């Protein structure tokens, strides 16, 4: 890579060319899952493989957050018994995973997307409706 942009540089210097929205995939029901279909606007910017991998990882993380299992039932029962006051002290499992997701997105932005002039917005900031990918104007020389 001829040039690497840091996230701050990107936001300050670059102009937003367009935004791509990756919509939710409801074929598995109401769980949070995003479509892995590769948007055509990103074809010149990023690998299809890379994109799909990122979205798939996100989907897996959300599935982990919403998973029904012994652990979540235990948490639910305990919460009910304490009249939900227990959440004043500790975070719910979902919130813990959301933090994990935020960290993952930040990592991906720094390592993968920012160098390509892209920025991934955490879906939680868009109400878990879309994964917003901001495409910045390509002012650099020598980038693909």
């Amino acid at each position: 890579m001829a040039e690497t942009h840091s996230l701050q540089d990107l936001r300050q210097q670059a102009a937003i060319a367009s935004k791509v929205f990756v919509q939710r995939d409801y074929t598995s029901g109401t769980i949070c899952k995003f479509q892995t279909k590769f948007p055509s606007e990103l074809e010149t910017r990023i690998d299809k493989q890379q994109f799909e991998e990122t979205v798939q990882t996100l989907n897996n993380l959300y599935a982990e957050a919403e998973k029904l299992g012994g652990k979540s039932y235990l948490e639910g029962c305990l919460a009910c018994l304490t009249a939900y006051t227990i959440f004043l002290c500790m975070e719910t499992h979902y919130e813990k995973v959301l933090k994990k997701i935020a960290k993952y997105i930040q990592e991906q932005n720094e390592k993968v997307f920012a160098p390509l002039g892209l920025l991934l917005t955490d879906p939680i900031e868009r109400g878990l409706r879309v994964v917003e990918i901001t495409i910045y104007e390509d002012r650099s020389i020598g980038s693909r």
Partner: protein
Amino acid sequence: MHLGVDEPVRECQYSQVCTRNSSPMETPHKKKIHTRKWRVFPGRNKFYCDGRIMMAKQTGVFYLTMVLIMVTSGLFFAFDCPFLASNLTPAIPAVGGVLFFFVMGMLLRASFSDPGVLPRATPDEAADLERQIDATNGPSGPGYRPPPRTREVVINGQTVKLKYCFTCKIFRPPRASHCSLCDNCVDRFDHHCPWVGNCVGRRNYRFFYLFILSLSFLTVFIFAFVITHVILRSNRTGFLSALKDSPASVLEVVVCFFSVWSIVGLSGFHTYLISSNQTTNEDIKGSWSSKRGKNNSNPYSYGNIFTNCCAALCGPLPPSLIDRRGFIQPDTPQPVCQSNGTSIYTPTRLYAPMCDQHQCIQSTKFVLQAAATPLLLHSEPIVLPSGRPLAGKSSLAGPCASLAPGHPSLTSLPSSVPSLTCAGELLALRDGDPHCRHHHFASPDETPSPPSPPHAMPSSAPCPAHGHHHHQHIHPAQLYNPASQDSLHEDSVRGLVKLSSV
């Protein structure tokens, strides 16, 4: 985003959105840095404790619920418990106390939580969706109304239609619905409960269910022990003097007697809904009933009752998506404040860029304008009949209870307190959402006749049921005044309508 569960409302500072002038137009650079997002929330909700507490706009019935529960329980503890504790066992007031606190805790949690409101689309998202829809539907000439915006998705072998919400500018996820009273799309929308003063959706359904379940136990408990108390006293001193000695018992028995039927019935109904993983909405519409088709089944059900119950009650609790207490970032796109329709409709410029708190003022202006036009004569029919009288005000859950099991008629809605229903309906008339109109005018062909009340349940189901796809873009003005679609008249109508609902 944590809610103080048993945080007493009294201790908090009340600052409602309506009383503050929080239009984003004024001093943007200074104020926005310290403005919390709840102040510019586009829905029709009230916020307390600096955004920690979120309720619907009409909360009168909620206070009634609180008063009924507290007064009845208070009388029980004051008048019946001393006798019962000394003559039977002190466990009675102890169990009663635990039940009472559990009931109040669940009620407050159900009322104060965010039910699962879906935030409105940012302008970029909305534009992107519009582009996609236009691409699918093809270009529309002037005066041509495009077909309803829907997307079909196959979930577990069932075809589910996702409808586009014109107010929130999103395609609603499956099981989400737009509440016209709160003017929000709510995830896994069950119903709007005026007794709880909030919508019941994904995030507070379990609290609502535990509330009505524990309230049934409490009501039965109080009823049983008050009767025991009176009987025991009567054995000693005779019936009439027993009643004289504890007059409160009579009141308690009356309240409990009427409540038991409605609340226990409602609990039973919701137990059924939980075990089959349906929402009240879906049950009323019969979305997954086998009567619709041979292969029709609920795609969301886990197959067995136990898993369905566990999932509904003990499953992971998703966090609030609306971030009430976050601060507005200057560079963050904010969803549009006004809730009128898209560019297809005559934009009501007077409404933009207002938030809800200005509409009262505008409504007054419109009324004055309307008074100058003969439209006022036509606007009488807008005041819709109040339908069923508010039956059983003394009972703890009248309208909710009207949804007895096996009563799929659209007219029996758990959330329709008639006066509120009228308000909700009238309020909904004002916005440019064809879906809202579609719901509210079940038979738009019959022009000025008031529609039957499937309105507080703002799903789009009556639309396919009635098959009036070509009618969904009728202005409310058209139905009541066939004369014109003049935007001033339209706004006047809306203003009058709004004012009459205030």
